[in-house]
């Protein structure tokens, strides 16, 4: 079968995919672009793993924006169940319908009419399979590792056949496959069966050059000089033995913070004052504050 009928507005090759992402202010390496391109053309979900704050969720948002599709987001949590992920029957309305039928005296075939679309409340997964005016939507299943295993097992049907079985109503199948992005922070290993159905990509910290471009895009107010210093410092910092290394999101925050403070060049004092936007664990901050930060700074200034 042809996987994704709506190909007219999809990028034609890997390079186009890459420039598409760039047009949405997302700088992607060739590796990530290949995975996205394949996911779009093979109609497969992509499973993105990586440290927090490296831009996994952002990919879905950018895809939705650049392809002009609806973004449907399902934030996972422990105990996420059918009723809040897929659908729920509207019980009060059903009750009222029964009462009315009773009052009118024809309860004969009420069973059929009570389980119709009219009484169905759609949740993210179901609405992702529905037809959307501007093409199949982008379905973001965020932080799948926070959901428990039973939910993961349920996803298997949705992700391999793009269909959902509702016992009372029958099977609902997507006419056009949505673009599915699954992210995981790896607080728990995702099961092999789910991995097998997805295109897998480990989103790593970007290279120094790429990160510099990202910061330039996302924090445009910052001077080139400071930006280079900042990115060099971050890369030094990531080599340190930290409990949680700063992600790209933190770097952008930091760059914005520095712009707000009208900082022209990095000094140990500035570092000490703003470390909180970069490191989120007290142990890490305590380790870096003071002489250690100054030492790293001296190293990058010597290298420059």
């Amino acid at each position: 079968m042809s996987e994704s009928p709506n190909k007219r507005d999809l990028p034609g090759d890997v390079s186009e995919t890459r420039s598409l992402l760039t047009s949405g202010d997302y700088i992607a390496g060739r590796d990530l672009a290949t995975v996205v391109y394949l996911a779009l053309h093979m109609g497969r979900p992509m499973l993105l793993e990586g440290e927090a704050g490296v831009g996994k969720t952002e990919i879905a948002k950018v895809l939705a924006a650049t392809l002009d599709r609806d973004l449907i987001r399902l934030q996972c949590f422990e105990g996420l169940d059918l009723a809040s992920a897929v659908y729920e029957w509207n019980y009060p309305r059903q009750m009222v319908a029964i009462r009315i039928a009773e009052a009118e005296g024809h309860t004969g075939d009420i069973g059929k009419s009570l389980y119709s679309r009219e009484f169905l409340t759609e949740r993210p997964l179901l609405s992702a399979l529905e037809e959307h005016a501007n093409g199949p939507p982008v379905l973001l299943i965020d932080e799948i590792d926070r959901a428990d295993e039973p939910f993961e097992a349920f996803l298997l049907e949705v992700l391999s056949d793009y269909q959902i079985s509702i016992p009372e109503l029958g099977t609902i199948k997507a006419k056009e496959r949505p673009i599915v992005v699954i992210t995981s922070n790896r607080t728990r290993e995702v099961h092999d069966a789910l991995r097998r159905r997805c295109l897998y990509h480990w989103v790593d910290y970007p290279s120094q050059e790429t990160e510099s471009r990202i910061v330039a895009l996302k924090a445009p107010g910052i001077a080139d000089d400071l930006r280079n210093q900042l990115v060099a410092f971050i890369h030094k910092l990531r080599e340190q033995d930290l409990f949680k290394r700063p992600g790209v999101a933190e770097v952008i925050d930091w760059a914005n913070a520095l712009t707000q403070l009208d900082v022209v060049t990095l000094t140990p004092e500035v570092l000490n004052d703003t470390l909180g936007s970069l490191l989120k664990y007290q142990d890490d901050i305590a380790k870096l504050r003071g002489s250690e930060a100054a030492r790293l700074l001296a190293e990058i200034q010597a290298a420059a």
Partner: protein
Amino acid sequence: MSGGNASSEADSGRLADNILMFCRTLRDAGLPIGPGRVLDAMTAVRCAGIDRRDDFYWALRAVLVSDPAQFRLFDQAFHVYFRNPRLLERMMSLLLPTLETDSLGTAGEAPIRRLREAMSGTGSAAEEQGTQIGIDQSGSWSRREVLRRKDFEEMCLEEQSEADEMLRAEILSVADVATRRFRFHPYGNRYDLRRSMRLILKNNGQLIELVRKRRLTVSRPLVLICDISGSMSRYSRVFLYFAHVMTARQRRVHTFVFGTRLTNITRRLADKDVDRALAAVSADVKDWDGGTRIAECLERFNVDWSRRVLAQSGIVILLSDGLERDSKADLGFQMQRLHRSCRQLIWLNPMLRYSEFEPRAMGIRTMLPHVDLFLPAHNIESLGQLSRLLQQDTDSGRASRQLATYQATQ
């Protein structure tokens, strides 16, 4: 994608063969690649095109690899294979026979040992029994009572296997925790509206009866970290036996061992056969009976594993004598971090068997403030006590309980 001219069809046939062989090579190397993935790989390559080597590489990797730990293997295999497929084949053929005999050797070892024991061991035991027939009391109640309290270190081999059996009977599963899921239950404390509605409709709305549901529970995740340094060898063997029983009894048990470095042996212990599981562990672990670097190993656990295995507020049981060799290490800090990332930290220390034990060693003194429970683990009775504690959910009064158990052991 669907239409292709004849020449590319022929090319792709050859390419398909190559991809197939490549997949098989990876499978032999241990990657979980089934026929479905092979087909996916071909589709992916057809999609991405083979004009650029890196696209080809990323496309194959996206489909065939699903774990960062496999990246290096894939990378090496790719570069060797697609430069010269023959080369890899030859390498594999050179490697495979030795690999196979190796794995046979380790897998076959345990049964052989048991067979040998079964044939010679019982024979000699019978002989011994023959000579000491007057005083043999094996299986009698008082003997079992003695065994319950006997230090693992003082047991002979025969007693050990009997002790294993007794220990198995003492081990209970860990207390359950409530999940956020519900299931139908006749006396549940909530109404199951969905099920009720279906029932009501069955009799056309004539009879309205509400059915109930109640919360599902699962057992709490358990993380066992076991010191296998020289001074601990007897106790760690028993503890691994304990870990094996726990692994079989409930889900979400993770086991680690450490001497000079930390090893995750969870998958090894999943083998139902305890001898085979322990043999696999000993083949995996390189630092048996060596020194201990507690702080460094705990740090590795904190950084690499704690977020992955302790996400749903688990219990950590640490078996160690607390004798840290490296005096400069930040043991207190690592213990504190471990303590903060779990629900309960239990330290088993076989040294507590001495009634006059005092936490004098530096390592023990630094670790002690950060544990919730400090318990002995030198005989069946103490492990049984631990198991009972785990089954009663210990919710409140962490500190007072810690003190109480510590005093109780005095």
